[in-house]
């Protein structure tokens, strides 16, 4: 009689809630750690975090990042270190959003925002230049390009979430502020990470 149980199952489904979301009209909330389009972050004083070391390009499995560093001009430095990212390009026709570049970055310069709806229509638009990736010098918010579909509030905290999994997000960080400040956000307290025995509140001192 297994057949008839099957009929009952399909009949019951008629009144169940639909799992499909009609996508462009309704959109699901995105997961907290979604890997989307990259941003290049700045320090609180507006200096770029990228030092042009090329670790992100080295670790990239899709070989989609191109970085060329240059010495900082002494009279008008771009980044606090000796060198800065002179050319920084990401080819989004190749990028697989694995987030390894974010893990590799020693200065937390590159992070991934939650934006994934960016449908460029030609190849040169697919290659994001440093100007396009860099957050705005005044507000610290990422730039919105004409073909990008940012949802409300998504341009905030584009660098915040990555810290829990970054090298500085290890369980031993409790009580220490272990990362750099952020233009528009200041120094944020450490997130809980994945060890789970500390609360974010006791973590660090907010600047």
């Amino acid at each position, binding site marked *: 009689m297994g057949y008839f149980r099957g009929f009952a199952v399909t009949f019951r489904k*008629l009144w169940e809630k*639909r*799992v*499909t979301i009609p996508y462009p009209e309704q959109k699901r909330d995105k997961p907290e750690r979604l890997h989307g389009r990259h941003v290049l972050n700045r320090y609180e004083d507006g200096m770029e975090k990228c030092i042009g070391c090329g670790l992100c390009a080295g670790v990239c499995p899709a070989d989609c990042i191109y970085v060329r560093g240059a010495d900082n001009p002494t009279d008008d430095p771009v980044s606090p270190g000796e060198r800065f990212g002179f050319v920084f390009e990401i080819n989004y026709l190749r990028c697989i959003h694995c987030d390894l570049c974010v893990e590799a970055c020693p200065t937390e310069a590159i992070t991934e925002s939650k934006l994934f709806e960016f449908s460029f229509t030609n190849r040169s638009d697919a290659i994001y230049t440093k100007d396009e990736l860099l957050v705005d010098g005044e507000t610290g918010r990422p730039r919105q390009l004409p073909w990008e579909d940012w949802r409300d509030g998504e341009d905030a905290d584009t660098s915040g979430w990555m810290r829990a999994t970054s090298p500085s997000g290890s369980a031993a960080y409790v009580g220490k502020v272990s990362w750099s400040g952020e233009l528009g956000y200041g120094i944020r307290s450490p997130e809980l990470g994945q060890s789970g025995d500390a609360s974010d509140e006791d973590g660090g001192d907010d600047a």
Partner: protein
Amino acid sequence: MVIAADPLLLGPLDLEIVLIVLLKVVVSFVLLMVSVMLMVWFERKLISDMQNRIGPDVAGPWGILQTLADGIKLFFKEDLIPANADRVVFKLAPYLSLVPAFLVFAIVPVGGDFRNGDGTVGWFGHQTFVQVADPPMGILLFLALSSVAVYGVMLAGWASGSKYPLLGAVRASAQMISYEAALGLAIATVFLTSGTMSTHEIVASQSDWNWNVFTTGVVPFLIFLVAGTAELNRPPFDLVEAEQELVGGYHTEYSSIRFAMFFLAEFMNMITMSAIAVTLFLGGPDGPILVEQVAWVWPILWFFLKVMMFLFTFVWLRATLPRIRYDQLMDLGWKILIPLALGWFLLVAALNVGRDRGWSPVPVVLVGVAVLWAGAALLGGAIRKARADRRDLELGSDELLDAGDGA
């Protein structure tokens, strides 16, 4: 014997009568086309409901115009004919599939009050049946046309000059011919109880709850349902177009409007098969007339509801059952359905003869069941023996091969 005929056509012909007949033809054509359109939408919507999905919902309210959009798209697509195709037959096949599907609906009584009247309605001062035609051989026309439809499928596969359509067509013709036997025997049982082949008379004999589904004892109805599903190549009997094995079966090489015609025929057959099932077993438009003021509405409404029940069941079957294996299909058709339909037919025939002769029904049933049980035991024994022989034969041939290798 009086040949059942439409009172409209009994008198001398004049222009008005010809126009009424033409009107009926046009209305049934349009009705069928629109219902096919809605049926495709209904199936897609219902099956997505059963799979927790939403289904088409963009074209028109609730996506109801989706089929129209698909049809327009298909119409403007490129019409390909494979290089190896037999061009004439390739172009002919879709029509062979579509035309019978249309014609079958002509013999289905869609309305008419069979309880208080004789199933006629008055239109423009003429009494007439609510069906396009009522030929005396009636339901045999349905069997004949569904046999013609096999040609459409078979020639489509053969004329494509391609292997998957050919395989699909061979499967289709084997399946449709096998199940037509069981289908015919189930219908023959209806002939016995109704005493006529004309669809109008069959419906008239079932009026006032005297439905054939009860008077023939449910079994022929179930056989008709299973064999009908197989005849339609619907899941779980859709081996003909098993996408995973045959790409699309007999219509793999078809594109554009020719493909649309096969698609149309398939869904139209589904509707006509449901309508025929309602006519044969569920009393057609028979049902209580609840509001006297609009008496003409009720038979049509009951007919519609009964057909909808079948259409729902077809979709439900598709949503629930996986496709069966080919040998299971043939086993079910030849070893179960045909013997069962034949046995039931003989039992009903014996009861009919017994009633005519005034015998008591109890011994007739007892003797009948005993004879049928003996027949079933013999058949089962024969099947088992054949299976054992085949196994021995296969074993023997292996030994022969082994011996050959040794020498």
